[in-house]
Structure formats: structure tokens, C-alpha cells
């Protein structure tokens, strides 16, 4: 990234492993990327690429038998000062709890699971707002229930929920999928986060509803200038939402760069092949699509060297022997591929 801004979040060589009976699964294996303040970063990849695990690591929500085994997650807190390394914080400690939900919020894929079915949606948001009162009230005074409820109604209006005064008293199961996801976004915004992680927020909803939610996120981002990490497997959603894109495969970053370069001048063979293999709304129909041959390797069975080399059309002898590191390959672009440089990662 050429910008001279300091990143809000900086992930460096992050490693997360899962110790299972069958062996060690290196779900994230040396991932690095930066998130600038106010930027929408798109993270794209297929199942098993480690995109969700990376996000869980940022929030310190990796569950046993998973463990962060290396790397740094430097996050610049709102109070200024030196960035904190989230990877070193205790998952249950006060500081991590304050950051999680307070400064970094998550929009999950399935909002049904994120809301408790026995409390109204409004009550749950009111509680979150009261917990983070200092973000709304300069004096640090705890907000009253009534004030917090007013804020909630305002948030509901912001996220485009009609009849917000009535809807705050609804239970999550009374709302449709689209409304539930809007309520989830309101919940995420309730603590005025500086970073929002959206983990496949539209995968479980229909295409017309998805369009509504994407438009909403875009509007909110413009209004509050919140940084967003947007995780998805859908290249269309990435193209429409992100300004900067990170492409992941088997726990490593294959390529990253501004969205236009990734879609119009991809460098890594994986990115190129992925873009070619999706049917578009404009291409020729009923003809064979160019495919990426082979299957995604089983996580216990990681190929040595570059993880993509067994499926790569441009594979060279070196690719199976060493792991290419992420290096600049164009003015704004980085790629992990020996076609462009010969820097290998140690280990």
C-alpha cells in the first residue's frame, strides 16, 4: 500500500493451527495485510482458505483445539497511543472485551444465531449501548434505558428498518432474513466501532435482499467512515463492495491490491483462474468454462511449497520446493508467486 497513512489494523505473519487427533491443521499459515482507517477491505477465498479463522483470530475468538501460534495483530485504539498486539491479549481479559464489540464489531453470516431468541432485538441492542455508554456520552455517565432505547430506534431508522418504534420490541425470529441482518448491522454500529468485520453477511439471504443490504453497508460506510473487512467467496460482491482486495488460498495471501487492479490486471495464476472460471451475466452461454483443475487439498494434506502449485497452470520446479513470499509485483499490487520474484519465505 502506497498511502503514507498509518494502518488501523496490521496483521503480520499470522499463524493459527488446530490440533486434531488426525494431525495438525495449519488453517492460517503466515497471513499479512493492513486495514487503513475508513477503508473497505475485501477478503476473498474458497472454503478452507482461512479467511474466517483469520477474522476469529483478530477478535480472539479462536476456539479450542485452535490456537494462534505466531504473528502479530497490531490494532490502533481510538485513544491514540501505540498500537496493541491483539494476538498477545488474553481472550477473556478486560482490554480484549473492551475492544471486541467496543471498537471492532462483527456482522456474522447467520444473524439468527447471533441474537438470543428469548429477549427482544431492541433489548439486546439497548444493553450493548448501555455497556458502551462512554462512546455516546462524553462525560462517561451511564446512559439511561430510555436514552439507549432512543438511540436504538435511531439506529434502526439508519439501517432502513421501517416502523422502528415497533420493530425494536420484536424478537429475532419474528423478523425476516433481511430485517434480521439489518438489525444485526444496527447492533454492530451500536458501539460506534472503528472497524467492522462482515463475515459473509449476505450469503444466507436472497439476491434482491442482498442488494439492499450491500447498498445499506455502502451508505453507512460513507456516512460514518468506518473501516470494514468484508469477507466473501462471491467475486461479484467483492467487486461491488471493496476498494482493496486480499485473495487467500489455504491459509496464505496469494495476492492483494486495489479492486480495479485485481479484477482487470490480476497477477497471481490463482486470481486469474478464479476470475475466468465464474460464469458472468455477459459471457457466451452453454460453452465450457475455463476451470481450475483438481480439487481443494484436504487440510491434513497441505502440499509443500506454494499451496496452489498442484493446480497451477504455470507451475515451475521451484514452486514445490519453496513457499513464495508476498512481494510487490506492480505499483500497488503484491503477489506470492515465483513468476514475479524469487523471494521465498523462511520455514
Amino acid at each position, binding site marked *: 500500500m502506497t498511502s503514507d497513512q498509518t494502518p488501523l489494523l496490521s496483521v503480520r505473519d499470522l499463524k493459527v493451527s488446530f490440533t486434531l487427533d488426525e494431525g495438525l491443521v495449519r488453517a492460517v499459515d503466515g497471513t499479512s495485510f493492513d486495514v487503513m482507517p475508513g477503508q473497505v477491505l475485501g477478503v476473498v477465498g474458497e472454503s478452507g482458505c482461512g479467511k474466517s479463522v483469520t477474522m476469529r483470530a483478530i477478535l480472539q475468538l479462536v476456539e479450542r483445539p485452535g490456537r494462534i501460534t505466531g504473528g502479530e495483530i497490531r490494532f490502533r485504539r481510538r485513544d491514540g497511543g501505540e498500537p496493541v498486539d491483539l494476538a498477545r491479549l488474553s481472550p477473556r481479559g478486560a482490554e480484549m472485551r473492551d475492544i471486541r464489540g467496543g471498537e471492532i464489531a462483527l456482522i456474522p453470516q447467520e444473524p439468527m444465531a447471533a441474537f438470543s431468541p428469548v429477549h427482544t432485538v431492541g433489548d439486546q441492542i439497548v444493553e450493548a449501548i448501555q455497556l458502551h455508554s462512554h462512546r455516546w456520552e462524553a462525560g462517561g455517565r451511564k446512559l439511561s434505558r430510555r436514552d439507549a432505547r432512543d438511540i436504538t430506534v435511531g439506529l434502526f431508522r439508519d439501517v432502513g428498518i421501517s416502523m422502528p418504534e415497533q420493530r425494536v420490541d420484536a424478537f429475532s425470529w419474528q423478523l425476516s432474513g433481511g430485517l434480521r441482518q439489518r438489525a444485526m448491522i444496527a447492533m454492530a454500529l451500536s458501539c460506534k466501532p472503528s472497524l467492522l468485520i462482515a463475515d459473509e453477511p449476505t450469503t444466507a439471504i436472497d439476491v434482491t435482499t442482498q442488494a439492499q443490504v450491500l447498498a445499506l453497508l455502502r451508505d453507512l460506510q460513507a456516512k460514518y467512515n468506518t473501516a470494514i473487512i468484508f469477507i466473501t467467496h462471491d467475486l461479484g460482491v467483492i467487486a461491488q463492495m471493496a476498494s482493496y482486495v486480499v485473495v487467500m488460498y489455504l491459509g496464505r495471501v496469494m495476492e492483494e491490491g486495489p479492486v480495479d487492479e485485481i479484477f482487470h490486471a490480476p497477477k497471481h495464476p490463482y486470481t486469474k483462474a478464479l476470475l475466468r472460471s465464474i460464469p458472468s451475466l455477459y459471457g457466451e452461454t452453454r460453452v465450457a468454462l475455463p476451470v481450475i483443475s*483438481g480439487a481443494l*487439498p484436504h487440510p491434513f494434506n497441505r502440499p509443500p511449497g506454494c499451496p496452489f502449485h498442484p493446480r497451477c497452470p504455470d507451475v515451475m520446479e521451484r514452486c514445490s520446493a519453496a513457499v513464495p513470499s508476498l512481494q510487490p509485483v506492480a505499483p500497488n499490487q503484491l503477489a506470492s508467486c515465483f513468476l514475479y520474484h524469487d523471494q521465498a519465505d523462511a520455514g
Partner: protein
Amino acid sequence: MTTAIAGKEAEDRVAVASNWRLVWWRFRRHHLAMASAGLLIFLYLIVLVPDFFSTQNPEQTDARQAFIPVQMVHLFDDGGVSPWVPAIVGKRHPVTLRMEWTVDPKKKVRVRFFAPGYSYRVLGMFETNLHLVVPADPSMRIFLLGSDRLGRDQWSRIMHGTQTSMTVGLVAVILSVVLGVVLGGLSGYVGGKTDQVIQRVIELLQSVPTIPIWLALSAALPRDWTPTQVFFAITVILSLVGWTTLGREVRGRFLALREEDFVLAARLAGCSRMRIILRHMVPTFTSHIIATSSLAIPVMIINETSLSFLGLGIRPPAISWGVLLQEAQNIQTLALAPWLLTPGLVVIVSVLAFNLVGDGLRDAADPYSN
């Protein structure tokens, strides 16, 4: 358009592993369950040939040898292998004039392993007189766990009680599994009115307190039935009350499986109803049924023991753990002969073993869960 799978040997082994093999691999990792399974196998060996493990006929009485204490087996003597048990000496109490027995480790009674003793029939098929351990002098009697008030050998009686109690548990569970699978399966697969009726019956059976039911049913047994008849009647009574939980579970499984894609696929392939049930649905939950049943056996054993303890189940001269514990009902006897409580210990150990095996099986039963 060929898709290659990395052909590793270990992977191939998993690839062709059937469901049962996957269950076994997972069960094997469960050390406590494996040890318990070993113990249960040993207990069922006793069930097969209790006489082999006995030192004497469990019915042999001798009022003069009442309340003889435990005679422990010692393997070594004079630096060599020469098994013996300490002898017992009796003294009449000067005040109560009762015989009081103590062990005298200085006097040794030689014993032999795998040696001939009294003769018995193995599973009613052939006759033998081979025993695990008997006194070297056939005219002697040894009491590995002491004797009761009639001078019967507690050890040999526990061996025979094991046969009865473990069999009752197993047979009762098998009967309830059959009832539960058939009725639960009918309920889940046919649905509608059948389902309603069976569900109401289950609710009725579950709402009645079990102890009074048993009491009523066993009280209704004719007093002149032979111990064998009573034994089977008790088994049937236990399973009639015990099938309901399993029936519910099987019904639930059927309901869930009916919606599975592979069951629909089988229907669309033209499979008959019978084939869908037997080939696609039942195998999917057999492992669960086995796990559930192994957790149900200890409940049956406890039930039988309680009934017999209350004098309403198996009746002497038949021997079961419950019948043996009846002997320990009297506080006075207990103070005098604490070894009469050993059947209780056996009950605890076997019930624990069944529960551990059942838990292990339940965890291993679904290799596709993750």
C-alpha cells in the same frame, strides 16, 4: 477431466473404511471405555461358565461353617510359586457360645489352578470338572469371599449371581430394543393415527411410577412358578416398562431420516419401502441403538437387583446379586460378616463399566459428526 486424489496409504485405509471400522477406531482411543469393555467381557465369561470360576457348589450348606471370613489367595511360598490360602481356626465364644472363625496365616491350605473339582455341565452341553482354583485336598473347602449364615461359599454364589443378573440385564435390554425399534419405527415411519396411539402409550407408561408397576406385576406372578419361570417373567416385566425411551429415540431418528436427501434419492431410485428402512434408515442409527442399549443394561441390572433385594424379583433358591444382597439386609449380620456386602461392590463395578462403555460408544457412534 480427471480428478486425482493424492494416493497416500493412510488415506486409502480411511477411504475404504466402513462405518463400523470408523466407530472402532474412535472407540479405541477411549482408554477408560476400552478397559471397561475388557472387564465386561470377563464378566460375560463368568456368565457363560460360572461353575468354572466357582470353588464349590454354591448350594452346599454347612451350618457349622457359618460366617467364615475371607481367605485370600497367596501365590508364592518359600520363594517359589506355590499357591495357598490361610487356614481358618474356630473358637467358641465363651459367653455367646457362638463359633468364631479367624484366619491363621501360619497354617496354609494348598490350592491348585485349573484343577478338577466338583463336576458340572457347560451350557448344558458337556460335563467337566475343571475349575479355576480348588483346594489341593478335595475334602477341604475354601472360602475366597467368606461364607454366609448357612455356610455357603460367597465367592461361588457371586459367580452364579453374576450369571443371573447379567443375563437378566442383557435379555431385558434386547427385548426392549426389539419392542422399541419395532414400535418406535412404526410410529416414526407410518405416522398418523399409529403414531398418535403409540405416543400416548409411551406417555402413559412413562407417567406411572416404575416401582409400583413392578410391585404390582411381580405380585401378580403365581407363587408356584419355578425360579426359571420367575426369572423370565421378571425379564419381560423389566423390558415392558423399559422400552419407552428407546422407542422415542427411534421414532425421532426415523422422522429426521425421512427428510434426508439420501433417503429421498433412494425413493427416487425406485427402492421399496422395506429396502429404504432396512438398507438406508436402520443402519444409520444401529450404532446409536447399541450405545443407548449399553447404557440401558446397567439400569436393568439395578432394577433387577432392587426388586430381588425387596424380595419381589428373583427368589431363592435362584441366585442373583439382589438375592445375595438380601442376606446383607440385617445390620447384625453386616457387623459380623462385612464380606456379605461384596455383591454390592460387584453391582457398582459392573454398572460403572457399562456406563463407561456406553459413553465411549455414544461418542464413537457417529463418525460423520465432525
